[in-house]
């Protein structure tokens, strides 16, 4: 039985009331009494529920338990738990400074952490886990390519860090170029590319070696709707090809569009986890005919005060 933590409950089967001083409860599904009420009350969520359960049946690709990381006196992560299943698009949301990037860097073995455990593909992740890293792709928030190399050379280089065989590398590079819609810009240097094309190049460099687990850190920042749509379609395509995706963004509509499950992190720990619809039901005054947006929920859960 899988555990869906952190949905806030007040009265049985009625409203989920985040923001009140109730205690976070962990409820299980299916068969849980509260869950039954929820299903009955929100019938339209059934499909979504089943999908979630399908996901939860799958094996874990990433398991993070009790992750703690401090920067001197500042606690960046306070016992973070994550469980990402194979083949899902997992949204990692949180206000600025909530610990998302720190969590990702710890998971990827870049940052030391104080305590907790990180397992990727069932194995413990360490800074020298090169075998695990070979199966991971990372698309950083900032465009990380060389201005002196053209599109093809950049993708080829980053692909070459994972793939030794030259022929295979060439095929993968061509595939990534096609995937990102950069065929016409193969010989362009990054400085000649628009913001959207740059973002696509950034993504192509991260996924060229066909990783099984992909971290996408705000890949659609400052791009136009067309590029964003292209990127989001691409992410769905990656999932269809079997990749598991961990996606961080501040654009809630993107999360609604593509994420199977979402974790909201604040102050270094996850404060909500579930599908988008489950999270929506956390609204204090939920109206199924006029459901709140994920953005409303996010603000309700994390508060409206400005963050660093």
């Amino acid at each position, binding site marked *: 039985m899988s555990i869906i933590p952190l949905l806030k409950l007040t009265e049985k089967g009625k409203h989920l009331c985040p923001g009140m001083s109730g205690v976070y409860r962990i409820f299980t599904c299916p068969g849980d009494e509260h869950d039954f009420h929820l299903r009955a009350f929100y019938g339209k969520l059934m499909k979504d529920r089943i999908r979630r359960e399908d996901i939860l049946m799958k094996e874990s690709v990433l398991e993070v338990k009790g992750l703690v990381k401090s920067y001197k006196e500042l606690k960046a992560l306070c016992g973070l738990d994550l469980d990402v299943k194979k083949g899902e698009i997992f949204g990692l949301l949180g206000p600025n400074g909530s610990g998302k990037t720190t969590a990702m860097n710890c998971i990827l073995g*870049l940052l030391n952490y104080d305590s907790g455990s990180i397992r990727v593909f069932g194995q413990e992740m360490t800074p020298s886990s090169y075998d695990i890293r070979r199966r991971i792709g990372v698309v950083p928030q900032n465009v990380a390519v060389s201005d002196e190399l053209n599109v093809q050379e950049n993708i080829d280089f980053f692909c070459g860090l994972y793939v030794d065989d030259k022929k295979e590398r060439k095929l993968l590079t061509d595939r990534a170029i096609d995937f990102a819609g950069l065929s016409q810009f193969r010989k362009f240097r990054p400085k000649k590319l628009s913001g959207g094309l740059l973002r696509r190049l950034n993504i192509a460099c991260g996924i060229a070696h066909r990783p099984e687990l992909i971290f996408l850190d705000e890949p659609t920042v400052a791009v136009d709707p067309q590029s964003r749509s292209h990127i989001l379609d691409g992410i769905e395509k990656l999932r269809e090809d079997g990749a598991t995706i961990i996606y961080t963004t501040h654009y809630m509509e993107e999360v609604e569009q593509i994420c199977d499950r979402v974790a909201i992190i604040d102050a270094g720990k996850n404060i909500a986890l579930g599908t988008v619809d489950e999270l929506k039901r956390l609204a204090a005054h939920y109206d199924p005919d006029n459901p709140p947006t994920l953005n409303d929920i996010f603000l309700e859960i994390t508060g409206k005060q400005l963050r660093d």
Partner: protein
Amino acid sequence: MKKFLLSFQTYFRILFRTKDQLFWCLLFPILLSTMFHFAFAGLITETNFTKIPVAVSSAYPLPGRLKTGVSDAMKDVLEITFTDSVEEAEDLLRNGKAEGTVFLDKHLAMQVTVPPGSSVGASILAGIAENYNLVRATLIQTYKEDGITGLLPLLRQLLRTMPGKSTDASSAGTAASTRDIYSSSFVANADGSKGVDIDLSRINFYSLIAMFCLFASMSGMAAVIMTQANLSEFGKRISLSSASHLQILSGFLCAGFLVQLICILIGLTYMHFALGVDFGSDTGSILLITAAGCLSGVCLGFFVGSIGAMKESTKNAILMVIIFGGSAAAGLFGGNGFIEIEHSLPVLNRINPVALITDAVYAGALNGGPARYTKDILRLLLISALLFAGGVIMQRKKSYESL
């Protein structure tokens, strides 16, 4: 190995496409050497040099033999007029018949007077006096500390540094020509090898080459920055890959070394064929020292780049201080830094890569002695090895406390 080759090839490409890199490592040496050519070439050459008129007076009558000896020794450089009094010498200076006056006081210290806004000739004169006084002070100090027994080896050494001149100690202090003083002040023939005539402007070119060898440190440091997760996004991506960080870094460093070597070779070719700088007949030894110089430059950049989580600008500043400070200490920008350091803190000359490279190029080009050349190369390689080892130790850390 494949990842090493991939990173080598990629960084090689990147460096040759980086405009800053090309400017500093290729264009700047060519521009500066051209400038040096017009500033110095022909100034102190055998054919074009105009003798510097100088009026010499002393606190006590100089023996005729000494006067003749000095005049003969300096005949290529100075046009000496001995006067009976300081006033008479000053008259010559005022009338423009002398570019400077030299006064030997009762302690035989040399005092030079040159008019304000003086010419290059007057500067050379001041340089000669400075050297003379330095040698004199050293001799006196040695005599005070060790007596005549301590003085003898020094005199013997002094004689060796004044090649082709009188071998008797009495004339050693005055027999050196300007060229000898300059060349000996720059690079002492410590192994007693026979010296040769030297075009002074060459030394500037040699120091220039040394400085540009150390410019390889820029690509060395850039390699570290491009591969380190806490210094660049590019580095973060590399650190997250399944490739060994040190393997990628090694490829980058080797590419940096090769690119700098190619740039230097282009520079040397330009200096030789376009500017007519003579590097002697032993091309192989010049190439070897240039390669060793580039290696030490890359290792220096690797070491400085690997120090902690300093900002790139701070690391750049450290490199510039080392390169330009080292060049100044080796005498690139004039003065007698090398000889003064040789007297006061010789170990600095042994660890200053610019001084070592200059000295080795000098020794290689002018047959200054295989022993000295070999020692310089070995010292450079040792320094490179130490810097590289230090860098590797600092680079071994695989994860960070913060990014």
